[in-house]
């Protein structure tokens, strides 16, 4: 990803909108007893499109904003989304551009990773109450929803940052021009 000031501003706006929409809208939706984690998928998409460094930095920043919006312990969501962005970026750098199936699988797996990191932070900071097995169900359902939403979210994010993508530029340069009709 080519990071110009314009693209950085675009990423900042995209991250802020995703964080606000997650807090005020997606987290209040009830889909099979849980809510879709769209902000995580936005960070995942940016990791896949921009690489590990972009994914990690965007994940950290969006996570920090989420912590502030929810008045939660600073660093919790930041660490979670930083991990997701970094792993998604590393996949792209080591394996290459993922296929649609791989995007869905990665989206689901990283949603599960996000749930695990949050759980680890909570357990690490001490949970005195009983923990229900429904936590596991919640994480699994969330990851299935994540797998289903990964492709549409990636396509949407790609639209926003399209001009900064190296692949898209190369593709545009290679695209053959339509042959002109031969004049009689």
């Amino acid at each position: 990803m080519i990071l110009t000031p314009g693209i950085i501003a675009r990423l900042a706006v995209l991250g802020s909108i995703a964080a606000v929409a997650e807090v005020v809208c997606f987290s209040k939706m009830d889909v099979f007893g849980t809510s879709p984690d769209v902000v995580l998928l936005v960070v995942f998409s940016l990791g896949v499109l921009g690489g590990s460094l972009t994914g990690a930095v965007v994940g950290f920043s969006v996570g920090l904003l989420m912590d502030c919006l929810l008045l939660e312990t600073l660093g919790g969501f930041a660490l979670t989304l930083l991990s997701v962005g970094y792993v998604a970026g590393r996949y792209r750098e080591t394996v290459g551009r993922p296929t649609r199936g791989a995007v869905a699988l990665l989206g689901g797996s990283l949603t599960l990773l996000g749930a695990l990191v949050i759980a680890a932070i909570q357990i690490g900071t001490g949970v005195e109450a009983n923990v229900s097995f429904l936590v596991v169900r919640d994480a699994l359902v969330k990851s299935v929803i994540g797998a289903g939403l990964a492709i549409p979210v990636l396509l949407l994010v790609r639209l926003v940052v399209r001009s900064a993508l190296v692949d898209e530029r190369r593709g545009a340069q290679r695209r053959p021009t339509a042959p002109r009709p031969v004049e009689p």
Partner: protein
Amino acid sequence: MYRKQVRRRRAVLLLLVAASLTLLSVYYREGNAGPLHGAENVVSTVFAPIQDVSNRALKPARDLVNWFHETFDARGDKAKLEDQVATLRDQLAREQTQQQETKELSALNELTSGGIVPNGTTPVTARVVGRSPTVWYSTVTLDKGSSDGLRVDDPVVAAQGLAGKVTQTTPNTAQVTLITDADSAVTARVTPSGATGVVEPNVGNPNDLQLDFLERGAQIAQGQMVVTAGFSTGDLGSIFPPGIPIGKITTATVEEQQAYQRVHLSPFADLRNMDFVKVLTTHSGSNSK
């Protein structure tokens, strides 16, 4: 060139992880007046109007998704509700007979208790504008804050019963920790048996709460109501006024009561879908309702 890139990538990753862990650690150690809490409050205050506007604008989209879920649920609930209607019809007949007696008792009760809103508190109506997306942090954000008279530890009630308490405030927003949060504990009393205990969550299951630390031999049965105890001993006192409905006993097996001194209840308040709550403030703000 490649090695330089790898080194840079690793350095940035380490820096960000270290920053996250430092933030977590410092945030836990510092008090509510610490610089990190202050910075968080500033960001939250700046985004509060955006959250409020977005919340209203996105409500139709949210309602559409929830409509599908509720339709599925409603199909399953139909048979259950028909049974309940039959039972309630029988109960109504009995209740009407007892009504006359109850009226007299209620008049007596009103003399001794002033309802669930204690004297000196002002209920402030607030809109729920944000919700934590994980089951681990069972918190919501309100569109009212310290400038409306909200203070930390103020009790929060939803339409059907107790919702939680205020745990953080900014001038325009407040964080409410729900009774389903891992950190929540509320002293409660079972009615009519009078047994007391502490209501604690079952993290991950918002429809199940536990009433722990019950005295052995307490007579508790399924269907009994649990309300806040609101005890006070000397300088110590519960932040929740007595008599706020919390939930209904769902499982009260003798074995669990004997072994763990515990029963299960489901909360009255629909904590996942509430849009408005009332905060029982003790300090009235400039525009409290």
